[in-house]
């Protein structure tokens, strides 16, 4: 934590609108740790205008004490890594918690006083089908969550799962079917599909993440943390030991794109916002008309093909193509 303070000092006095405690498993911080950390950050930065402060947690490490501490430290949103409410599925991917613990964690968060609760769900788990996924989601909805993130299982190389690929892993088309049903179910339950992987009750969209997708600026502290400041994107090395020894010397991957490329990058992330989409006029004001000319032409072409809709001055990814966004968005890059 001292290291974090040292790194934070570099940007002393900066004001922020949102805060996110995540990256690893902050719930390991425990009650006292959270308190001290937030207090430190408040003294270094101007956190008086923070509207959303998220705390990321795993079900097995949430205690009432921790929750209490988080709330009093100013955190007002919590994201819990549920993944699934089917024990067999959780076991297949080596999760420590079970469904019961996950449900309890959510209850505890609500009881403690969190009004903005989010759960992560994974689609494509071994043995998963619509029946089990529907059960998971319905139970979550019944707990009156405000926000649900749905990600497709990605099998990382060199993991136990990778070396032992299960035979009942849902294939690509099966995943697509499941996702479509997820969208429908959540819509019926009042959740807005506001970003490709994220669903929220109106007003409960994650502000911190919205900033990412809108091309906003942000500061990341800690090992592997990423930032976007003054037009540059940079990241810290992921080595914890090295970070502790030298918190301010961990920069790697500093990138500053030329204006047209920055614009393209922003278009790609904004189009992930399925309702909000992209305002081309605002974009040309931000980057300069000449820099977005080529981009604009490409958007028009994609619109002609039906992959993108151009309505009310905004470009939006057509809903039926939300799941194949990569195949569409890459066309906006390069020449």
């Amino acid at each position, binding site marked *: 934590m001292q290291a974090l303070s040292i790194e934070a000092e570099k940007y002393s006095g900066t004001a922020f609108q949102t805060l996110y405690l995540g990256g690893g498993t902050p719930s390991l911080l425990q009650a006292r740790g959270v308190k001290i950390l937030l207090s430190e950050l408040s003294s270094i930065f101007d956190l008086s205008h923070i509207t959303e402060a998220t705390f990321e947690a795993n079900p097995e490490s949430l205690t009432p004490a921790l929750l209490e501490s988080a709330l009093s430290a100013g955190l007002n949103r919590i994201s819990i890594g549920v993944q699934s409410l089917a024990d067999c599925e959780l076991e297949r991917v080596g999760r420590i918690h079970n469904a019961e613990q996950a449900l309890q964690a959510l209850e505890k968060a609500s009881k403690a006083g969190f009004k903005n609760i989010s759960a992560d769900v994974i689609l494509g788990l071994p043995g998963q089908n619509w029946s089990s996924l529907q059960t998971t989601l319905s139970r979550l909805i019944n707990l009156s969550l405000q926000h649900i993130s749905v990600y497709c299982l990605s099998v990382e190389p060199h993991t136990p799962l990778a070396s032992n690929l299960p035979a009942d892993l849902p294939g690509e088309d099966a995943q697509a079917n499941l996702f479509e049903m997820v969208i429908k179910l959540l819509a019926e339950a009042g959740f807005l599909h506001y970003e490709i992987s994220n669903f929220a009750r109106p007003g409960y969209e994650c502000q911190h993440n919205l900033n990412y997708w809108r091309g906003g600026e942000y500061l990341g502290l800690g090992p592997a943390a990423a930032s976007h400041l003054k037009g540059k994107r940079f990241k810290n090395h992921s080595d914890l030991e090295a970070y502790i020894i030298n918190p301010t010397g961990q920069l790697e991957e500093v990138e500053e794109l030329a204006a047209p490329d920055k614009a393209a990058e922003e278009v790609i992330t904004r189009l992930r916002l399925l309702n909000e989409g992209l305002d081309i006029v605002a974009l040309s004001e931000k980057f300069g008309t000449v820099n977005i000319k080529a981009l604009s032409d490409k958007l028009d072409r994609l619109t002609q093909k039906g992959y993108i809709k151009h309505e009310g001055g905004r470009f939006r990814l057509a809903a039926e193509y939300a799941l194949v966004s990569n195949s569409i*968005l890459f066309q906006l890059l390069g020449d």
Partner: protein
Amino acid sequence: MMPFGFPCCKSTSMLISEEMNNIRNFCIIAHIDHGKSTLADRILELTGVLHTTDNKQVLDSMDLERERGITIKAKSVRIPYKSNNGRDFILNLIDTPGHVDFNYEVSRSLQACEGAILLVDATQGVEAQTIANAYLAVEAGLEIIPVINKIDLPNAMIEDCRSQIQDMLGLSGKDALLVSGKSGDGVAELLEAVVERVPPPKTDDNAPLRCLVFDSYYDSYRGIIPHVRVFSGSLSKGIKIMLKSTGKNFEVDEVGYFTPALVPSARLTAGEVGYLGAIIREVGDIHVGDTIISPDFPDTPAVPGFRKVLPMVFCGIYPISTNDYPKLTLALEKYQLNDSSIVYEKETSAALGHGYRLGFLGMLHMDITIERLKREYGQDLIATMPSVIYKVITRKGEKSEEIYIDNPSRFPEPNFIERIEEPIVATRIFVPNDYIGAVMDLSEKNRGTLKNMEHPDTRRALLTYEFPLAEIITGYYDRLKSVSRGYASMDYEFTGYKPGPLVKVDILVKDNQVDALSYISDRDSSVGKARNLIHKLRKLIPRHLFSIPLQAAIGGKIIAREDIAPIRKDVIAKCYGGDISRKRKLLEKQKEGKKRMKMVGSVEVPQEAFLLLLKMEDEE
């Protein structure tokens, strides 16, 4: 030992100088892998021309040749040799291509020689190209020295080889020399035999300049360098020469010989083998087999046997990106300078854009050319289905016409076609007894007609088949090797045209007929083959955002169809603060990957899909 001067030197019309007497022009002919190149290396080592520190084969200087284990371009080497009785000789070893595709070049190289070492692998015996090459050598009037190679191997069957040489080639088997190209055993004796038995070149000092061009290659400074054998007269710097077939004149800039590096010398005289430089830049100015004469004696007879290159197999070549068309044009021009047996002309496909139609001597020639173009010239290319030249007899009302077509997409409307004829080849196949059945099955499937079967020895059969060339060019050779575990060998030659029950099959990708993918098939197997092809194509074309029907049709009738379903989902993963750069880079990579695809209408087709068509292999 012969006294100095042969009996014929007493004739006044044929004065043989001492120099000419000591020249021996010879080559090594053999079936593939019988050890020609290794033997050549041993000869070069033994005579001190080359010191090979590793076992690299010296005359096959091109990577591709080494990889495939074959000689493509002929080369020659001048070898100074001191015989056992102390006399100095000049041995000109002319290396020859061993593959059936390059028969013409072999015959021209043979024309430059007086003798040939006929090499037979002791473990294999006489094989298809042993016979083919022996015939060529006999036709060229060469003194043939049969030699049995690889005698060091445990399974060498020397006596069998002797009998085969006697019975199948009509040459003296019992006198065949025994060598091991690998260990060098017998090579010294072989060289003595060459000196003794290969006659010196006959020359006529009174005759005007007359040389044979038996090979050529391109040098960026000096232009096209012909390899020549001088029959009469002499070549030196400054003299004027004329190429008989084109009538073009040039001035000689340099002459010399090969060691195999180029060594300039003052002159090349009758009987000698070497090169000349005359700053010849245009491919069309010089042809293998051409005769070089003096412009002062335009009636000097040409060396017989010259013929213009006869391509047998054609395919279309297109750049992946239309922007690369000029680069392809340049690459082909350069390529042809080193391989004048390639013919090509511009071609346009509605589906693939601008490209070229290339004509090859055979499948191997085609494979190698495309491979070389890709490597040496860095061309991202797609090649279409190989085709032979069909003879199409059309009838429009009363009028009947005979046209030759090498591009199936150029076929006239079916209702105008009265008859289609295809080129037929007579094929010799050697196959061990164990695989006779399999080879006969394979041949029947490929429309082969068995003409004859004999047994040159107790281990194997010699099958003579008649095949449509079209069947041979679609991977028959590979399949033959496959069903016979590599033991079968074959040789073929064109014998004429025959009508066939042939149809044109069109390929449609997402309702667009891709003209460049049309091919000719025999009616009976057309549906099966088309289904197979469509099935394979489906696996090679990636899913798009829309459905892609793949169809094969004859006339307007669809005979095969498979649909490529649209992609339903790509990666759905987190995209937060630390993921944005990486995500963008991933998309950039995706974009790069698309560049290697050829757009056929709105469908991106990878290079591999076109290469699949080139092979048209059977189901594994």
